[in-house]
């Protein structure tokens, strides 16, 4: 009984961490530039594919593959800022949505051309074995995901609140006009946010790849979970994205274990619906300052 419970909790926490990373990257551009990026799914997918290419095809060691993947994804984010997002500044929500959907479709199709229609795999850092402690199977890779997420989120929190650039990024997100008056180049801050966002997507894609297989649609499924995490946690709140991601991962794992695995994928959607209907501002809404 207890073992099953722990096992499910571990599974949920692992996926929750992945969702948290996805949601965090997704939320960054919402917070920093007010942009809902529907091409985010492809950033995750490309992260996984770039990882596979570097490790499985070019034979680089995993750690180097991970590092390069994150860096290449950051470059991808930079390219996006130049080509896709800069011309979208100040445009209507529907325009941003449809433009990024279009780019996402093209990228997905391009991925099929580049990497072929078949699922690929990425090895883990620790082989495929698992430790069993007290009847609970521990996959070292899951532990790595959890540990890495915790460290990363702590590091990001520190960077955002303790460094100059982090504070400036926050300032530019909270009030772009005031930020300009403080001499903060907001365009550059946005670019930074896009790079960070893409790097997080790449990391999530790379880390989740060994758990499943790499396909052209993997990012889309993860982005939908990221949506759910964002809605559950509170729109545009970084803290909310992390908590929301964990919540979605855990609820999904417990739902699949104790209710029905058939409906596993609907749980996240049901959460979106329920949360939006009951509390449109999310479970952990960021305090928004009064306009006066």
């Amino acid at each position, binding site marked *: 009984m207890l073992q099953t419970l722990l096992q499910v909790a571990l599974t949920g926490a692992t996926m929750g961490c992945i969702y948290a990373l996805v949601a965090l990257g997704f939320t960054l551009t919402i917070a920093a530039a007010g942009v809902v990026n529907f091409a985010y799914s492809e950033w995750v997918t490309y992260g996984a594919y770039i990882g596979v290419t570097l490790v499985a095809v070019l034979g680089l060691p995993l750690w180097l593959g991970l590092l390069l993947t994150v860096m290449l994804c950051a470059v991808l984010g930079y390219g996006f800022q130049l080509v896709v997002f800069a011309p979208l500044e100040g445009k209507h929500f529907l325009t941003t949505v449809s433009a990024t959907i279009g780019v996402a479709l093209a990228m997905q199709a391009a991925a099929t051309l580049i990497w072929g229609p078949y699922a690929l795999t990425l090895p883990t850092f620790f082989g495929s074995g698992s430790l069993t402690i007290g009847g609970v199977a521990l996959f070292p890779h899951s532990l790595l995901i959890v540990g890495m997420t915790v460290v990363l989120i702590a590091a990001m929190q520190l960077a955002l*609140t303790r460094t*100059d650039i982090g*504070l*400036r990024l*926050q*300032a530019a997100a*909270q*009030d772009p*006009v*005031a*930020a*300009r*008056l*403080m*001499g*903060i*180049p*907001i365009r550059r801050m946005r670019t930074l946010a896009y790079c960070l966002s893409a790097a997080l997507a790449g990391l999530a894609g790379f880390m989740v790849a060994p758990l499943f297989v790499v396909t052209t649609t993997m990012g889309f499924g993860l982005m939908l979970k990221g949506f759910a995490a964002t809605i559950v946690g509170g729109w545009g709140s970084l803290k909310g994205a992390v908590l929301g991601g964990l919540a979605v991962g855990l609820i999904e794992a417990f739902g699949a274990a104790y209710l029905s695995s058939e409906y596993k994928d609907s749980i996240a959607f049901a959460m979106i619906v329920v949360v939006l209907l009951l509390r449109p501002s999310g479970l952990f809404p*960021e*305090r*928004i*300052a*009064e*306009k*006066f």
Partner: protein
Amino acid sequence: MLRIDGLCAGYDASDVLHNISLTVAAGQIVAVLGANGAGKTTLMHAASGLLRPRAGAVLLDGAPITDLPAERIVARGLSHVPQGRRIFPGLTVQENLMVARTAATYRAPGGFAAALAEVRDLFPRLAERRDQLGWSLSGGEQQMLAVARALVARPKLILLDEPSLGLAPLVFEAMFTAIASIRARSGIGFLIVEQNAEQALRIADYVYVMELGRIVAAGLPADLAQDKAIERAYLGA
């Protein structure tokens, strides 16, 4: 110090400013008075680079800054304290001040620490609120923080847009007193646009009166108070 020459500006289909010219000498406090809708805030935006003027020039220390974007004008020594304060709501008081640092902050003797000490002297309340988030401050505290942020950038001149807006009379009287003392100790000049004529007249060295996007009167505070130009601008002839 600051010279505005034949400035015209507006938004979309409407012209707001018509041929505005004014000067602020080093260490001078100049007030621009006028009723709501006279174009005072537009003047501030055009001066600080938030709005690109249609014609005319803005010169700081003789160098044109007309076409520079706002984020580069700060580095030239012109700080703009916008209407409504625009404190970063999710940053603490200390973080709001940290974000306002520029190269000039460090060029000045004592660096950021000296700037902070100065702010603490002027507004002890801010030191008490150091770790509170921006949104939780009262209107008066926000106005103090907004001025403090400008001071941290070590400007030569501060543009101050309606510092009295939404504040209780006692609070903004204190604010104007603080402005006068900033000028007295550090020689920073001010261009203040204000609706509350009495307070502005109290500390200003020179006053312009705006009406419907034009300057309709200018002079020493005492002279203007005499000839009722201000009252006309506010209440009609």
